């Protein structure tokens, strides 16, 4: 039996509406100081201390090919990846939405390559498009970097 609806946690980065499956999100936390890591790959923004656990913060904007903006409001979406947790700094947190699975579609073909590569699906919300990120692909290096 398959579920007929999906619950997506949504947030914004550079105005773009993005989301992650609720089951992949551990929590949303505020104001995390990011300790930079010299020599780290560009996808790693630094490390954050979440109640004694040290998590890598992923540079989401760099990963999906967006301009880096100085608008650090300190909101992080904490993503579960296997046994590890990963922190994802975002510009603002929106809502948790429950969506009918028939509204799920493949991400549009004409998206920027590095953004398209990180997307699992696109959801048509009527007035706007929600891009659902794929955690697995998100934390891989950008494909353009490998070629």
């Amino acid at each position, binding site marked *: 039996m398959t579920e007929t609806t999906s619950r997506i946690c949504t947030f914004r980065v550079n105005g773009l509406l993005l989301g992650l499956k609720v089951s992949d999100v551990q929590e949303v936390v505020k104001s995390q100081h990011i300790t930079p*890591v010299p020599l780290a790959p560009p996808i790693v923004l630094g490390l954050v*201390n979440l109640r004694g656990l040290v998590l890598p913060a992923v540079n989401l904007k760099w990963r999906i090919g967006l301009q880096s903006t100085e608008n650090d409001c300190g909101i992080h979406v904490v993503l579960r990846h296997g046994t590890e947790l990963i922190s994802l700094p975002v510009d603002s947190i929106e809502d948790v939405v429950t969506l009918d699975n028939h509204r799920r579609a493949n991400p549009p073909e004409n998206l920027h390559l590095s953004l398209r590569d990180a997307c699992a699906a696109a959801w048509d919300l009527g007035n706007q498009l929600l891009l659902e990120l794929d955690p697995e692909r998100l934390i891989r290096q950008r494909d353009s970097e490998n070629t």
Partner: protein
Amino acid sequence: MSELDETLREFLIEGHESLGQIEQLMLSMENDATRADAVSGCFRLLHSIKGACGFLGLRHLEELSHAAESLLASIRSGEITAGTSHINWLLQAVDGLKKLLALIETDGSDNAGAATVSQILANRSSYSQQAEPVKAPSTVPMRITAEIAHIHPNPPSGTSIKHDDIPAGASMLAEATVRIGVEVIDRLMALASELVLARNRIMQASDQIEDAGYQAATRQLNLVTSELQEVVMRTRMQPIANVWSKLPRMVRDLSRQIGKQCRLDLEGGETELDKTLLEAIKAPLTHLARNSVDHGIELPSIRMGLGKPAEGKIVLRASHEAGQVTIEMSDDGRGIDTDRIRAKVLSQRLATSDDLARLSDSQIMQYVFMPGFSTADRVTEISGRGVGMDVVKNSIESLGGSIDLSSTLGTGAVVRLRLPLTLAIIKALIVSAGNSAVALPQAGIVELMRLEGERRTRALTHVGDAVYLRFRSELLPLIDLAKTMGIPCSQESDTDAFSVVVVHAENRQFALRVNKILDSQEIVVKPLPSLLKGIPAYSGITLLGDGAIALIVDPVGVARLAGLQGRRNQAIRDDSKTPELTKNTRPLLLVETTRNRMQAIPLESVDRLEVFPVNRLEHTDDTPVVQYRGGILPLYDTSGHPGCPFDAERWTSGTVSVVVHQTPHGLKGLVVARIVDTVIESVEETGGITIIRGSVTQIVVPETWLAGVPQ
């Protein structure tokens, strides 16, 4: 998971463990067939396996363990004297039992094991008919059938364990222990570490709160947390026997395969180590044992010719020593031929013959650890410690341990490993580099220095872009930590003071330049997130007392990043020659006495160096004393006759410098005017006079100098 599944799983875990032990006991029977404890040990373990088979419905497993048990029963009762063929069959049976356990693991039953069992049972003829060369005086003809009574009614004297004792002993053991999954322990460990960090923050904050009740509670929290952490750490400790129990069998099989006779003796199997460390040393130990068999031990015919016993002996010994674990593997094989290493070094042009002439034998042996040196053609022939020794060394060093090799040609070789007890908590220096604070593991750090003003100018030598630090009589490459790691830092001037950490790693020394040494503390090592794995500069992460994250820097990785490669000639030799540590030389502490003469004290006799304000001195009838570390430290003056008390009344300075020396009767203090340096010089055992740095220097050996002092 159903109830039965759980029972079966436990049985399998226990079964594998028991078989490992049985194997070891059988090998010891092979050396001494009359060892009653080994025989009854095997018997007891097999008996409990067989017992469990009954109610788990494992028919074939039961049949095979019964057959093996029956043979052991006859050996135990003295009906049969065990010879090699018996042991061979018993080992076969153990292999069969292992196969069945593996089968059960996949199928949930041993139904498919019929063929295995019947074949092994058929092989019983291999020993039953054969006349055996045995170590015991006579062979009693034997019959082996499934009907033989398990236990002889009157065990011969020397068999201490009666059958009746078995169930009682076994059940007591089972009650005293609980099996816990590793992941539960790891989680406990992580939680304890987090608690430690929370504790540290509360301790810091509690300074501002002046409430007696609150203060008491914090102290309590502090104590309980420390103890909890220690106990959790201890749950991760396992006896080293768990890892090396497989080695005797491997040594036996391997030596047979290549026509040699070797025995591996294990000592100190109860020595405990952290689980992660145990896992990590499994491969290196196996490698070393293989090396000993393959290359160290000679063929029996050669050994006989040399007047050695035909059977080669390898001893693996583990012990706790000064907060570390020492594992030593020694063999009585042919040893390491340093002349052949020299020849190889020359032919590979790794060094010139002038270089080699300066090196002692033990330094020559270090070439064995060089990568490439071992993989070249026929290098394994060089006393055989060639293949992959660099890999062994690297894996031991990556655990924060050290490896050390010594050998006497013709009589054997010893490999000594030193390992920390645990990897979870290490001592580290917190240093600032640029605008970041990082942790440097204390293992491998040789010395710390602060360089400023003129001292800085004198200590540094520029060769092109590279900077070298003058350290003792060598020039060490100086690596700027911040620059190498790309840590942003403020513009510096040529006269800024900075600190230097001298590191010894991978057989070379180098210096790391940091801004400041902030602190020295025990840190909890957290693994790097997988996104950061593969950056050689880091070995982990830790949290500092204030919750800040600090990266744990691996000095070796930083050295590689800075372009230091290879392991030879890293230090450019200064013009003055460096005496090497040989039999006749040793490190000395150079001091100036209260009468302005030079003296040297062997460093090994120096426990600590202290400075006391003169007003802390108290007086007894004959010797001035200070209260020191909960005891009394009497003070002597080495400028006088042996055992001369320090004359405090004549002393005008406000402080005294004291060399603390440990004797079997407590600590003694030797007062000196100042500590000059440490040097390496040749000295006589008992003292004497020598020339060090152009000055006539008296050697003072505290043991003999203090010999006349009343205790």
